[in-house]
């Protein structure tokens, strides 16, 4: 055997061990974190049930602001869900190798974020108990959904995105599950056996696998564009100044990738530290993903400028009034903070040193998360609070149910993510092996 192959086998073995370390019996800290997440999730769910029983009125939404934090959360989580597919599918097609260390957690993040996001359209329904009326199902009363409504497009966009993301994630995981199967015993081995679908790693299987994976990547790529475009059309298709604008689709997609990338950093940095994956997730990787963050931040900033330029260049009185209000009105601090988080702070990533400073990136990613949440909040709330008819202007501030349910959504997301780190391989083992082999 060549020494190189020996080295490769050695690398592979340590890699498998390192990654499967994460899947060992959890420490108390893990249980604590899981319990905390689950508790938040439970609080959110109980609040939702209470809200359905009492009425939406316990939340802060009102006339004219019919959508508030719930829809903000929806867009936020859909946005988070974006990077998963971007990192795994798009970067896969572009052969950007640095994706390999991020893609598993990014895909997991996608699946969990879409699940979380998918709850919000149901939470915000006045009559959540008949949510299934939003689906076109055959029924005796011959009722059908309105395909003109962007909300129906949403239903399809989000459910399609969830299905594809979940399949893509799972297919990519099959070879790794086979490795886990090899390294576990007892009941767990049997479960992993089922989910690894009899993977043997034969050449034929790899051939099929690669084709399928490539196909799914190609299939998922347009979804990155379409899902958030459709979500943005919830707003762009309306007549409300501040919503009704053609740049929303690309603007929202860029924003989604921006926020998703930031969330990947938020998740991967602690994961790398806790599971000691410094060997595999290197500073070079962070350097590259920071560039993605910087690039999308610039697009987002450009969109902010274009929005204002369109409003004032267009000379439309409602648009002008709206954007003046957004910048200087009741919610100005939110808007300014958003600008700071999304446009100003990421500019620091032009400095190479900062791109390679993990602690800095972590803090930055948190700021970006906050900034992107605020972006959606500002777009939704300021546009509704002052639209055409001044008599009906009004302000909106969230009340406890919004806070509890938002907390619950984070609880849900982190709960699933924590479970993921213990039951599934957190890095794409085979792909890192491949990368190392090359």
């Amino acid at each position, binding site marked *: 055997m060549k020494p190189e192959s020996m080295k490769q086998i050695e690398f592979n073995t340590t890699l498998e061990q390192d990654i499967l370390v994460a899947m060992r019996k959890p420490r108390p800290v893990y249980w604590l974190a899981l319990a905390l997440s689950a508790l938040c999730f439970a609080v959110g769910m109980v609040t939702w049930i209470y809200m359905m029983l009492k009425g939406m*009125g316990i939340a802060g939404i009102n006339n004219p602001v019919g959508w508030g934090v719930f829809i903000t959360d929806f867009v936020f989580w859909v946005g988070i869900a974006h990077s998963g597919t971007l990192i795994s599918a798009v970067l896969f097609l572009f052969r950007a190798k640095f994706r390999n260390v991020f893609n598993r957690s990014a895909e997991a993040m996608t699946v969990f974020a879409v699940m979380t996001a998918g709850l919000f359209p149901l939470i915000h*329904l006045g009559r959540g108990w008949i949510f299934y*009326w939003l689906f076109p199902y055959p029924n005796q009363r011959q009722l*059908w959904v309105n395909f003109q409504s962007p909300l129906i497009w949403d239903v399809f966009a989000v459910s399609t995105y969830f299905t594809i993301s979940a399949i893509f994630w799972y297919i990519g995981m099959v070879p790794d599950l086979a490795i886990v199967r090899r390294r576990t015993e007892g009941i767990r081995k049997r479960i992993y056996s089922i989910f690894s679908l009899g993977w043997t790693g034969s050449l034929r299987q790899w051939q099929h696998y690669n084709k399928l994976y490539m196909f799914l990547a190609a299939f998922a790529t347009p979804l990155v564009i379409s899902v958030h475009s459709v979500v943005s059309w919830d707003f762009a298709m*309306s007549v409300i100044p501040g919503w009704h604008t053609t740049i929303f689709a690309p603007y929202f997609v860029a924003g989604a990738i921006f926020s998703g990338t930031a969330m990947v950093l938020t998740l991967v940095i602690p994961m790398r530290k806790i599971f000691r994956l410094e060997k595999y997730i290197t500073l070079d990787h962070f350097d590259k993903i920071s560039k993605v963050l910087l690039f999308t931040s610039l697009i987002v900033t450009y969109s902010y400028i274009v929005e204002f330029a369109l409003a004032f260049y267009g000379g439309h009185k409602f648009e002008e009034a709206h954007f003046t209000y957004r910048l200087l009105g009741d919610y100005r601090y939110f808007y300014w903070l958003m600008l700071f988080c999304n446009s100003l702070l990421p500019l620091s990533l032009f400095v190479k040193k900062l791109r390679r400073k993990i602690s800095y990136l972590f803090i930055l990613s948190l700021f970006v998360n906050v900034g992107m949440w605020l972006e959606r909040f500002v777009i939704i709330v300021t546009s509704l609070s002052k639209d055409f008819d001044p008599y009906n202007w009004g302000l909106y501030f969230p009340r406890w149910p919004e806070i509890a349910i938002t907390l619950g959504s984070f609880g849900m997301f982190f709960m699933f993510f924590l479970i993921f780190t213990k039951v599934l391989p957190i890095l794409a083992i085979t792909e890192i092996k491949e990368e190392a082999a090359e």
Partner: protein
Amino acid sequence: MDRRDFLKLLGITSSATLISSCGVDKANEKIIPYVVPPEEEIYPGKALYFSTTCTECPAQCGLQVTVKEKVYHDNRSLFPTKLEGLAGHPINDGALCARGQAGLFRLYHPQRIKRPLLKDENGNFRIATWNEAVERIQKELQTATSAGLTNVFFASRTTGSLADLIDEFCQKMKVKRTKEFEIFSHSNIREANRIVFNQPLIPAYYIDRSDFLLTLGADIFETFISPVQFATQFARVRENSHFTWFHIEPHLSLTGVQASQRLVLKAESEWVLLAYVIGKLSHSQAAKRNLPSGILQILPRFEEEHTSQLTGIATDHLQQMVDSLSRAVKPLLIAGGVSTAHSHGLEVAVLASLLQWMVGNDNNQIDFAGAENYQQVGSLLDVEELVNQLAQKSLGVFFISRANPVAQLPVNFEFSQRLHNAQFTVGLSDVMNETIRECQLVLPLSHPLESWGDAVPHYGLRNAIQPAIEPQFDSRSEGDILLQIMNSGESTQRYKDYLFERWHKNFGEEGRKDFLTHGYRHEPLPKIQWSLNTAQTISFLKEMKRDETEAMNLLWLVPSIRTYDGRGRDLSLLQEIPDPITTVTYGDWISISSQMASALKVSDRDEIQIATHGFSLQLPVKVQKLLPDKTLLIQRGAVATLPVEIDRRSGELYWVITNTSISRTGKRIALPILAGSMEEEGRGLLPEDAEHGHGHNAEHKPWYPEHEHVNYRWGMAIDLEKCIGCNACVAACYVENNIPLVGAEEHLRGREMSWLRVQPYFDKEGQIEFVPMLCQHCDNAPCETVCPVYAAYHNPEGLNVQVYNRCVGTRYCANNCPYKVRRFNWFDHHLPEPLDKMYNPDLSIRGRGIMEKCTFCIQRIRSAKDIAKDEGRLVQDGEVIPACAQTCPTKAITFGNLEDKKSKVYQLAHSERAYHALEELGTKPAVNYLRKRGNDHEA
């Protein structure tokens, strides 16, 4: 059974189970079929109508009560569900104001007194029987009489047969009937007419017989004497191109906003203005009659400059007004309200009467023959005398009927403390109030909708009062109570029989039936020729107050269009709908001028303290543009007991407190102000400019195919020239459509549920314009395309319908509605018992999580179409009238079929004046607004 059959069966049953479990909310009404056939021509679902009289204010409009059959607490029964103005009635001709619309809230008031109550030694009420109560009254009357004490009967304004019965009662039972109590007694007007014409009356004013109107402080559209009547007259005269209206006031009122020219003058200086006008007109062409020289000599004279200086009205405005007045053929002057309720109020009223006499009464604009029936109404001097008698402990049994002096009299009358000096107090009322709580015996009155009666609002007009529902509680009508006390032992006559006898005697049997069917009987009286009482006038003018006061920080306590003198404060509907100009709903506030606000550094909702004569109060502020500086406005009901002076000559209550000191407290009060902003800023809600005709804006190519309408496209035209912003339509809409009352908390969150609102806006000239805003039933409706489940859908008749059962509550439709007229049910709202008796059974009560909005009263369209279908024809123009249009005092709202080219609404919608709100959005609304034509328009 083979396998295939089994599977088929399984498939059918499981899918049937699934389908039946989907969707439909459980019906919340039991359906009980008729076992016994209906009596008295009552058909299920068909409304009955009764003609009666509104008793919410002294105007006493004709009322049509809609009675519908429905299930309440598992019993099928008939309930009044809606009040309308009585069509053709000489006062209101089918219209009704917001207070009138709220009448059902008194009928079904949760605090109705349910049975007689007697106070025990500890001061707690216990339930008594009627017999016990009557015997107690008789016993107390005897002991009082034998002790040499005076028994008194103290009531608010009473007219018609009941007034006569009270006289009979007082005579028989040796009770002294005091002058009646109305806090707005118009004493100065009556006193002035007594001085000038020997007629101590409030004449009937006919705006529609005039071509020039000068109103001095009289809030003719709000509370002054008969506001709905004035509004209907105004609507008629507004069609006339040569009608000019000057309104002069020291503050800001809804009425003033409507005038062709609103002039603000310094408080209490109206007499200077009138003296100037009289001087200017006397011996000129304009004067039809010349005042006797004796009067002219003694009358103070003012030059134009000096007048302008004293009144604060610019000289060109003075000239303009005098010119218009001189040109007028049939001028009418109405002085009242704020202008006759201050220290120079009597002077103002006298000079106004003199001026009217000068400019003539050719068209009988002012009619003393059909004067308002204030015969028995006294002034506050009478109340003062009564209070003095109380203080001397010379009163025996004290009856208080339908009056709430404890809440309404200034605190210096010490009414509630002194009331205990009477030997025995008997309170008669339908709803518990501050005065009734002080009485020893409380007798529950039946609401006028539960009892028989009649009313004479002005001479020559008798209104019927007839029951539309059985008394809900163990209450009786006042007539029945009096008859029972009078005739104990003997066979007691029922008040109904008493009335029927009288009507029969006066009108004959046919006449009586006719009276009850029509609801009123109008017999115009011969015109009274009025003549000037020169001697009396001169002696008054000699004594008249001529001081030119310069008062600071005037605090005006004005009546409210919503609550009148405060009596509407406990009707929840009137709290729910906004005050027209400030758009405040729940709670009390003080309006201050912008200048004062910046001087005090306060803004809306900041609390200020007002101190006056050892009395202070704190109220949140509403900054009111157009309100003159150093002027503060409070609605009287909010601070009714402030110590205010009265005019010693006439007994008129002053509405103003001078020289108050004001400071800010630093607190902020949660005050629901519904208008987010009153600045329209050229947004396309008000008409852009006069040249801009209909549909001149950019052509919009619709994305989706256009709707086709077969036979009907329902539409509306709202004439902004006629809309006076009185909010009657809003109140009518609430009652007709079971719109939930949500309360102050929800209003603070911006969650009012009104389907229709009257939006006040400042136009480019800084004047207030009202724009009633309701669902525009757009042809290209932004709400329809965004609803994921077709709950918002366009029906073939052009209605933008909301399918409640289908609504899942995304609120996307509301977000996307540029007019923001959609209302979401944030909670399950239900009126408390027994108010829920008024729910209109033709509509559902919407549950939580459902969007709702104006339907153009689809239930009324439905029933008109049913009738048309039975007769094999289409619905004719005028057959469908939505609640808002029906009640509108000025008939500003026209509804009909836009597909019918002959319909009135079609013609209005295609007139030069028509425009759409936010036309540039291309929503193609079915609601057309008609812009104002300016003052000298072509008829």
